């Protein structure tokens, strides 16, 4: 089974969290939470299993705009993303989300997440492993200001060449 094989591969990587999710409720099968130093190895594992990268995107978890019921870490909810690492709710974070899909007969949609500090958002690029990540990471940089270390050309993709603002940040004012 593809999902089981993947889980074995990832166990070797020692992720921060790995959860089987309910596909009918969430739309994906496997939810893996990693540290920023592990994303390239994760991408290599996925490439080795024949996966393709569907999208790379970011989410801005500005704590004042964090989910209202979850003043404390959302473990209590039971419905939240269970793979949230136990950090203090004060430190502001951004999240980079990678969506992987396999184009073969077996369906196992995988979501890989990584939380990075908002004050200094950087993590390694996976564009060496998946060439398509090049544009996705440029777009994420445009929208959030996340720096992808080792990226060949992080110039604006969708915003104008001289743009120095990042529109999808929660504290962005026009």
């Amino acid at each position: 089974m593809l999902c089981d094989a993947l889980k074995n591969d990832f166990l070797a990587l020692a992720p921060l969290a790995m959860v089987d999710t309910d596909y009918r409720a969430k739309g994906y099968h496997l939810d893996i939470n990693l540290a920023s130093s592990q994303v390239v190895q994760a991408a290599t594992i996925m490439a080795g299993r024949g996966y393709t990268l569907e999208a790379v995107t970011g989410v801005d978890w500005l704590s004042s705009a964090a989910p209202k019921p979850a003043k404390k870490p959302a473990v209590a909810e039971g419905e939240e993303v269970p793979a949230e690492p136990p950090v203090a709710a004060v430190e502001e974070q951004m999240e980079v989300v990678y969506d992987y899909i396999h184009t073969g007969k077996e369906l196992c949609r995988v979501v890989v997440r990584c939380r990075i500090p908002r004050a200094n958002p950087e993590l390694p690029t996976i564009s060496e492993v998946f060439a398509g990540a090049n544009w996705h990471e440029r777009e994420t940089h445009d929208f959030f200001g996340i720096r992808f270390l080792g990226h060949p050309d992080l110039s604006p993709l969708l915003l104008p060449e001289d743009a120095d603002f990042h529109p999808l940040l929660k504290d962005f004012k026009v």
Partner: protein
Amino acid sequence: MNDLACSPNQETFVINLGPQHPATHGVLRVKLTMDGEYIVHAEPVLGYIHRMHEKMGENRTWAQFMPNTGRLDYLGALSYNHGYALVVERAAGIEVPERAEYIRVITVELNRIASHLLWYGAFVLDLGGFTPLLYAFDDREHILDLLESVTGSRLTFCYFRFGGVYNDIDDNFITGTRAFIKRLRSRLPDYHNLVTKNVILINRLKDVGMISAEMCRRYGATGPVLRGSGVCYDVRKNEPYSVYPELNFDIPVYGECDSMARYMVRMDEIEQSLRIIEQGLDKLPEGPVMAEKAPKIIKPPVGDYYAAVEAARGTFGIRVVSDGTNTPYRLKLRSPTFSNLSLYGEACQGMLLADALALMGSLDLVIPEIDR
């Protein structure tokens, strides 16, 4: 042919294709470094029609974002409606009645045919054949009239709602659609005789614009681009949603990896969509078209959700992060053509300009969908 282009002592010059250009459908700029007629380096430059739909998603309620989905890929807007409706219904746990599901599938497939017909006309126009465009538009008019009678729009649809569709279809639509299916089935042989079997077209497309399955995997290309490279992946079969599991249809796959393969995939998909619509009309059940228990104000539980649908150009994926309020916290639109175009720089190295344009046409680009 390819090694001629990389002679280091040749002078190269940079030429701009677009953003105003008859062949780039939409505002796309491609910076080409050319060595005579050969392309040394191609770099698409995006952002000319970037409207920041993802930010708009955060400033609107869930229901208010539905019209935005129609403005992304305006040629296949109903698929985008479907993707968004699917993800919110998944998040909020709304059940869609069966009649609505069938109506959704029928209208989405009609939209897919309309999109492919326009692609066909525009693609052959790029290659210099002016006439098929008008024949395709003639057929497309029928589809647009049918869809207008039901949805009220011809192009940028906003027909689906969370829990169903807002307007039921009537008998005129059903008889009109059946008549249209018959008409298009009689026209498709003409298209194949005049265009597909035309020796000039075959010379222009065969073995031109090779995109291997491995390149598709590295770039995340999906849709007819992937199926023209021999990989049988279609979200409707691999990750079924709506009532597709109950319908009988094939996925055309061609293994030659050239522009001709991608052309044939789309032409065959038109026929398959006709089959789906026929079966959908035959199996259409009676019933409501809107879920009774659909809440007026949507507030999905906290968390993030994902849905993927097969749009005319590939996998349209949509990821929403909900914070329990009535506006999305984050809305990510995964556009198929974005990934399809990202392989253009690598794929057209060493090609002739005319071949590179044939390749671009065979990727079926809609720039507003790329730029969002």
